[in-house]
């Protein structure tokens, strides 16, 4: 019996080492998960059945009330989107002036939560989209209010998502108000992130919105991550203690969005930018539409995506008045500076560079600032 224990123990240690160091066991794992991950689906079934039954027997008044509420909400969102379309268009044009690639639209897909990690000390969830649905490792996951986390394990029809608040997770962020960069680390508490190594004198206040900065090349830039809850200046500590609350409902959201950002690598993006610069130089500084802009725009805009629709109406509009960029710059700076961040994650981040055009077109904006 002791021999058998020894053999099995050595075997499991060997398996652990191989699994940690190499990707040799990944196929076996994903095959096994085909069958085993159904356990999550099955344990989720009673809840889903209950939901189904509840919706069957939901009273008419309730449904009418909900319908009313949704209509109101829809109206509000539509209203916001009108503004967003204009801002997106402006943004694309300003970025053309700056020769930087437009990062306006990303494709998203809706996924559903089917299980939580049983270990209470890790913050991971299981969603019902996997490798066969085109999910990739490291893909960012959002909910309606902000970033939730990233995909850390792929299985054929499911995947595991590490949430922002897990104690092993960190995300590069910046303060939406002034662009101050920091790193938000999870604490293991679902309602708290901590900004590490923020200087005591840094301009960061309670209530500041933190958006993803996109610097780690993992998360797309400009999505809301957290709001600063408290800033503690302790003279005994080398850095300020900054605590923030994630904007996403990390432990409540059932429907999540998977973001498919453009799949160019950083190198390709740099090459594209360089190409655009060359074109610009060849033409003698005229306003050139960089090759990157149409590339991002004609990516399939899914109807389900809340972020994508504004880009599609914006594209033809921005294409026609390519040259008269000057009159448009005037109204550009104002709304960009005052636009509330929560309204449009994609637009607000990308709106910031609107302050830079003085370099490209000093005549237009120089007088205003």
């Amino acid at each position, binding site marked *: 019996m002791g021999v058998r224990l020894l053999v099995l123990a050595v075997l499991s240690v060997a398996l652990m080492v191989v699994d940690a160091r190499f990707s040799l066991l990944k196929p076996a794992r994903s095959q096994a998960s085909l069958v085993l991950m159904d356990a999550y689906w099955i344990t989720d079934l009673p809840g889903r059945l209950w939901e189904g039954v509840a919706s069957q027997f939901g009273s008419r008044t309730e449904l009418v009330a909900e319908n009313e509420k949704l209509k109101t909400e829809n109206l509000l969102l539509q209203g916001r989107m009108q503004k967003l379309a204009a801002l997106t268009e402006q943004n694309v044009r300003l970025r053309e002036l700056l020769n930087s690639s437009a990062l306006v639209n990303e494709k998203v897909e809706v996924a559903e939560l089917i299980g939580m990690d049983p270990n209470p000390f890790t913050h991971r969830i299981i969603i019902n989209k996997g490798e066969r649905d085109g999910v990739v490792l490291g893909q960012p996951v959002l909910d309606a209010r902000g970033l939730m986390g990233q995909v850390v394990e792929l299985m054929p029809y499911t995947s595991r998502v590490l949430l922002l608040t897990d104690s092993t997770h960190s995300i590069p962020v910046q303060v939406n108000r002034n662009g101050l960069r920091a790193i938000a680390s999870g604490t*293991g508490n679902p309602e708290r992130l901590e900004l590490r190594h923020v200087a005591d004198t840094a301009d960061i206040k309670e209530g500041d919105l933190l958006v993803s900065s996109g610097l780690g090349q993992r998360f797309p830039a400009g999505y809301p991550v957290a709001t600063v809850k408290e800033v503690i200046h302790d003279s005994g500590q080398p850095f300020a203690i900054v605590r923030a609350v994630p904007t996403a409902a990390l432990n409540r959201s059932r429907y999540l969005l998977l973001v498919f950002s453009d799949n160019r690598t950083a190198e390709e993006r740099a090459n594209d930018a360089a190409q655009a610069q060359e074109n610009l130089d060849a033409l003698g500084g005229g306003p050139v539409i960089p090759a990157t802009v149409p590339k991002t725009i004609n990516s399939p805009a899914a109807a389900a995506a809340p972020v994508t629709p504004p880009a599609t109406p914006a594209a033809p509009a921005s294409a026609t008045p390519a040259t008269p960029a000057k009159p448009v710059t005037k109204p550009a700076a104002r709304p960009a500076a005052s636009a509330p961040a929560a309204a449009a994650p994609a637009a607000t981040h990308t709106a910031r560079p609107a302050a830079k055009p003085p370099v490209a077109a000093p005549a237009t904006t120089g007088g205003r600032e």
Partner: protein
Amino acid sequence: MAGVKASRNGWIVWVTFAIGMLLSVSPLPQFMEILRPLWLALLLAFWALAMPQTVGMVTAFCLGLAEDVLYGTLLGQNALILTLITFLVLSLQQRLRMFPMWQQSLVILVIFGLAQLVQLWLSALTGNRQPTLALVLPALTSALLWPWVSFALRGLRRRYKIN
């Protein structure tokens, strides 16, 4: 691991393992999640005591691998833990059978507590260090559940004459 004579109704054992696996991933309220009993370990302990010729360390190892896939831990981590638990139960088997229920619970508490400490150590190695010793709590709930699980499974075994 097959016994000398063909085991009867052996599939029921596997059904209980499947149910145990479902229970070990079923959603629980947040405050109870920390207390989630080690269902697979409990079932393994019972079946290893009841029919050591069919359920042994190899079964434990395979179930542990399945649990690793479910939990997303390193392949082999839970396998090692479950193998260890089964080994301890099997080596104490003669005594455990003689013990009254409360004493069995006590032994189960110690064995599972040890296993959870090994678990803590292994997850610390992989970088997921738990901040507290609360990880030992499941051992306690499992020990408290042991009499009930034991009675229920014994009833099941008599009913279907599993051996």
